[in-house]
């Protein structure tokens, strides 16, 4: 199958092509043995197996990949990376797929990306993560009014244990220059 045919399956934007190129390099040597799928603790929640996902990356089937929820179910346990007989960085590939979906920015991607984005926003704002302000950011980004309620009982227990700290200034703006530089270099807004 030649390159031209593959492209027609999933015409991708320039930004997508960049991440896709990285991903193709990461999983290009996959020989479809399926050890990753057999090693995954979250396989039951995935709609496409990790093994099939690598094949779809090799083929550049971008639209089908982005419809899937498989990569959002990766909890970065690195069992597949450890066991891959080809030594591929598969957990990093899952993170790459999360970035790719983030660039694409569909509604479901925004919801699934909400926690990571809230975490990083808090790091940028305070230098260190402050759990109360990070969770507030997460609740706002998720746009799900039921979400704060589901964490309420745990929040109350944690207050009782003295585990909840009021957000402060933290380390202030110490990381902002690095974040700005990385954005410029990665071409993300």
């Amino acid at each position, binding site marked *: 199958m030649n390159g031209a045919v593959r492209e027609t399956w999933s015409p991708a934007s320039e930004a997508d092509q960049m991440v896709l190129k990285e991903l193709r390099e990461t999983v290009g040597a996959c020989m479809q043995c399926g050890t990753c799928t057999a090693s995954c603790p979250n396989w039951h929640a995935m709609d496409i197996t990790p093994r099939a996902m690598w094949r779809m990356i090799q083929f550049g089937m971008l639209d089908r990949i982005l419809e899937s929820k498989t990569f959002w179910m990766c909890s970065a*346990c690195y069992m597949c990376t*450890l066991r891959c007989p080809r030594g591929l960085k598969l957990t990093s590939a899952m993170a790459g797929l999360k970035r790719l979906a*983030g660039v694409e920015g569909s509604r479901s991607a925004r919801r699934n990306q909400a926690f*990571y984005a809230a975490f990083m926003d808090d790091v940028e704002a305070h230098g260190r*993560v402050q759990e109360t302000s990070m969770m507030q950011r997460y609740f706002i980004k998720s746009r799900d009014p039921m979400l704060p309620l589901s964490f309420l009982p745990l929040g109350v227990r944690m207050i009782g244990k003295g585990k909840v700290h009021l957000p402060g200034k933290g380390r202030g703006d110490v990381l902002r220059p690095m974040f700005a*530089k990385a954005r410029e270099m990665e071409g993300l807004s």
Partner: protein
Amino acid sequence: MKYAYYPGCSLTESACEFDVSTRLVMERLGCELIEIPDWTCCGASAAEPVSRLMNYALPARNLAIVEQEMDGLDVLAPCSACYLNLLKVNREVVGDRRLHGRVNEVLAASGLHYRGEVRVRHLLDVLKNDVGAKIVEQKITDGLQGMKVAPYYGCQILRPYPVFDEPGRPVSMEPFIEAMGGEVYRFDMSNRCCGASLMMGHPEVAIRSVAEILNDAAGADAIVTVCPLCQMNLEAYQAKARKAGGQSVPVLYLTQLLGLAMGLDEKDVQLAANLTMTPAVRRGIADRAWAVPAPGDEDETAGLNG
């Protein structure tokens, strides 16, 4: 022995008992922990899904500070995610000229530069290879009396870079449990993922993992952990895990248990801060395992032990 201590964000927030007990225990074991000045977040597992460059630059910033200002001491990280992110800089950035250059370009925005000469160690690595169970055994004053302890290793201290333990069947905590006078409760899921940050976006998936892990460890008096997120997931969601068919097991940090066995009291290691350590659970464990022998017994057995 001196280490550049990187507590990480969790240990300054909800996992303060891990920070307190780590500092106390390491001090008693003759290790000096010097906190890295002005350390910042490592990005945990949230950076990589957002920015590949920041995933490396955030931990690299801390290593650069150690390299420049702390004479390149070994970094000691008690948190699994901090440990792996810091280690990844040495394994994946240093040696890749293009990526190393790009990461240093980001660091330069804060006037920093990382050459790649700082060694990254997890708490358990230091305990095993620098301290050793023999030294720990000499410090034990309140033995665990055969308490059954299930060591839970989690993921990121073992994988993808096995440095100090066997990733498929980890054993590095066992000599310490035995040194404390405890009985090792081996279980298959000791290296199985707790669900990590899936607990935020897809709790139903993570709860299933937690329930399976708790069930596998259910014969133990307690589970010990060496990661704030493992600890949080295993203990904070036990009510939900029970609904998913899991059983309740008390969970505490290895360093808290070490502290108790070394004669520190429950307040010192902030045992009350653990979500599973309710007064009833503590009494239950004390009755079964930490039974303080009557004063008379101690004299009789002193000769045998000595």
